[in-house]
C-alpha cells in the first residue's frame, strides 16, 4: 500500500446524508473480477444527471469528497472504495462513516476522515462559494484546511499508523503466526469443520 501523509486537491461538496454503497457503486458493477477499473462505476446512477456535482467543473477533477453524515452505509462491498480511488479520490470527509466502509478504506489507502458536522458545513460553504478551492488533508497533524477553515479530524491510531507507513495488513499478522498456531491447538473438538462435507 502507498504511504499517505498529506494530500491537497479540489474539494467536492456532496450535500447528502446516508450516501449508501448502492449509490457509490450499484450492484451491476460488482460482477467484475478485477480490483481496478471501477472509475466509470462511481455514483453511476447519479452521474447520469447533468446537475450532479461530479458533472460540474471544476468538481469533476476533485480528489477530496466532503459528504454528509452516515457515508458508506449498507453493503460490505470494497468495490465502493475501489471506485472512489479509481476515480481519483484520496480522502473522504464526513461526520460519520459506516463501520465496514471505514475499515475497507483503511485497508486500501483511502483516508476516511471524521470531522464535526459543523466543520463539514463550513467547508461546504467555502467549496460552494469558491468552486475549485483545494482541501489539504494532513494525516500527520490530523487536520484539514480549506480556505480559511482549519479543522481537526478523527481517525483511529492504528489505521493512521498503517496509512502513514503504508503497511500491508496480512504481512503484519503473519509476524504472529506462532500465536495463531498455538491458538488453533486449543480449539475444542466440538467446533465444526467444513471438511469432510456432511450433507443434509
Amino acid at each position, binding site marked *: 500500500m502507498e504511504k499517505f501523509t498529506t494530500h491537497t486537491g479540489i474539494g467536492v461538496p456532496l450535500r447528502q446524508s446516508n450516501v*449508501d454503497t448502492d449509490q457509490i457503486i450499484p*450492484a451491476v458493477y460488482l460482477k467484475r473480477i478485477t480490483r481496478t477499473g471501477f472509475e466509470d462505476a462511481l455514483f453511476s446512477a447519479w452521474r447520469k444527471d447533468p446537475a450532479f456535482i461530479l458533472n460540474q467543473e471544476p468538481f469533476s477533477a476533485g480528489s477530496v469528497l466532503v459528504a454528509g453524515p452516515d457515508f458508506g452505509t449498507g453493503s460490505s462491498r470494497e468495490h465502493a472504495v475501489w471506485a472512489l480511488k479509481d476515480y481519483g479520490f484520496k480522502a473522504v470527509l464526513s461526520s460519520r462513516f459506516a463501520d465496514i466502509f471505514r475499515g475497507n478504506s483503511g485497508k486500501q489507502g483511502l483516508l476516511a476522515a471524521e470531522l464535526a458536522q459543523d466543520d463539514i458545513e463550513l467547508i461546504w460553504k467555502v467549496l460552494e462559494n469558491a468552486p475549485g478551492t483545494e482541501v489539504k488533508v494532513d494525516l500527520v497533524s490530523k487536520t484539514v484546511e480549506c480556505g480559511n477553515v482549519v479543522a481537526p479530524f478523527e481517525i483511529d491510531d*492504528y489505521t493512521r499508523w498503517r496509512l502513514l507507513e503504508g503497511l500491508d495488513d496480512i504481512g503484519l499478522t503473519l509476524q504472529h503466526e506462532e500465536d*495463531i498456531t498455538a491458538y488453533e491447538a486449543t480449539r475444542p473438538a466440538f467446533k465444526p469443520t467444513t471438511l469432510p462435507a456432511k450433507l443434509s
Partner: protein
Amino acid sequence: MAKTLAEKVWDAHVVRKGDGEGANAQPDLLFIDLHLVHEVTSPQAFEGLRLAGRKLRRPDLTIATEDHNTPTLAIDKPIADLTSRTQIETLRNNCKEFGVRLHSLGDAEQGIVHVVGPQLGLTQPGMTVVCGDSHTSTHGAFGALAMGIGTSEVEHVMATQTLSLKPFKTMAINVEGTLRPGVSAKDIILAVIAKIGTGGGQGYVLEYRGSAIRALSMEARMTICNMSIEAGARAGLVAPDQTTYDYMHGRPHAPQGADWDAAVEYWNTLRTDDDATFDAEVDLDADTLEPFVTWGTNPGQGVSLSAKVPSPADFGDENAKAAAERALQYMGLEAGTPMKDIRVDTVFLGSCTNSRMEDLRAAADIIRGRTKDPDIRMLVVPGSARVRLEAEAEGLDKVFTDFGAEWRFAGCSMCLGMNPDQLEVGERCASTSNRNFEGRQGKGGRTHLVSPVVAAATAVRGTLSSPSDLDPVPEAVSRRTAAV
C-alpha cells in the same frame, strides 16, 4: 469481571491481545471459526493470495456457495449474462485450486450463503463467523459473533484465519411483551431501525434480549440479526437457548454424542452476566407493535403500516429533512398519503432476511385459497435449494403457483438484482428483503420493505396491506401467536 455475551465470544477468540489501552489500543487479533465465501467479493481476494504466493490457511473452516449472480429460472442452462457467468466460473476455479468446498448451482445445498450455513449446522453458538457480505450478521441469531467484511479482510482471513479488530461497544435491544397476530420479527427490526436510525448502531454490537425475543423461533431471530447492519451495527446477536439447541440438533455438521454434550455445556455459559452493563440500551414494546413498512430510501425511514407518509416538515434535523424530501421524490409519494393507499406492482418474497421455511409457510397461510390481484407480479424465491425442496414436499409451491405467483430457484435474486430479477424504472415493490436504497432492486425501482405476511396480503389486495385487512381475516392471524 461481569461480561456481556458479545464480550465472552470475543475473549474466547483472542489469538493476540493488541498493545496499548483505551483510545490508543491496537486491534486484537481474533481467530475466525467459519469463513463463508461467495462469488462477488472473493475473486480479488483469491487473486491476492495467488500474487503473494500465499496459501489458504484453513480450507476446512471455509465454505463457498453461488448466490448473488445465479439465475432463478432455467438453472440447467448456461448463465446468459457473460460477466455473471465469468464470476461464477472464477469462483469454481478458485475453489478447485485452493481446495474449498463449494455448493454450486444445481446442488441441493446451494443457496444464499446466510441460509446455507445455519441449514448445514455449521453456524453454532459462540463461534466467530465472517463473510464478504454485510448480512453475515444473520448468524448472530445463534449467539455467534458474525460480521460482514470487505475483500481485503476476506483475503486476510484466507491467509491467516484471523482478523484484526478494534473492540466494539455493546448495545442491548430489549424487546418485552407479546407480538400481536400478524406482527412478526421483521416488524421488530424495522421498528428498531426506525427508532435508532441507520447510524444508531455504528461501533456497537447489538444484543437482542427480552421476552419477545426469547419467544421467537430461530428463523425469526435470524431475520432480526440479519438487519443489524441496517442500523449501522456490524453484528447483532441473541443468546442461545433451548430453541437454538432444538434447531441445531441433528443437522449435518452439529456436534454428536459426547461432543454434543460438551458443546451444550459450553453454550449454556454464553449469556450476558446479570451484573454486566451495556454501553447503551434501547427498549421496544412488543405488545403495541404493528406491522411496519418503509416509505423512503433508507431502512430507517419506516412507519407503522396504519400510518401516513410523513412530511419532511416532521423532521427537526436539517439533514433528515433534506433526506426525506429527496426520498419522497424518488419514491413518487405525497406526504400525508395513507401507507395502505399505496399501490404496488411487484411483490418479492425472498432474500437472506426472509426466505426460509417459516417465511414461506407464513406467506402461504395468508394467500391459501385466495386470488392474487391481477396486476401484481409476485416472485417467490426460496433461500436455498434445500428450502425449495422442503417447501415442495409440503406443497407450498402449489399454494404459490395456484395463487398466481412465480415459484423460482434459490438465490439472492431481486434483493439486489445482480441476476435478471430486477425492477423497471418507476416500478413499485413490496419486498421482504433488507434494503430500500435508490436503485437497489433495479435502476429507478421503488422498494417498500415489509414482512412476509404483509407481502402476501399486499399481493392479494394490490395495495400495501396487513393480513388483518383481508376478508375474511386469515386463520393464522385471527389466532394469537407469539411465533414467527
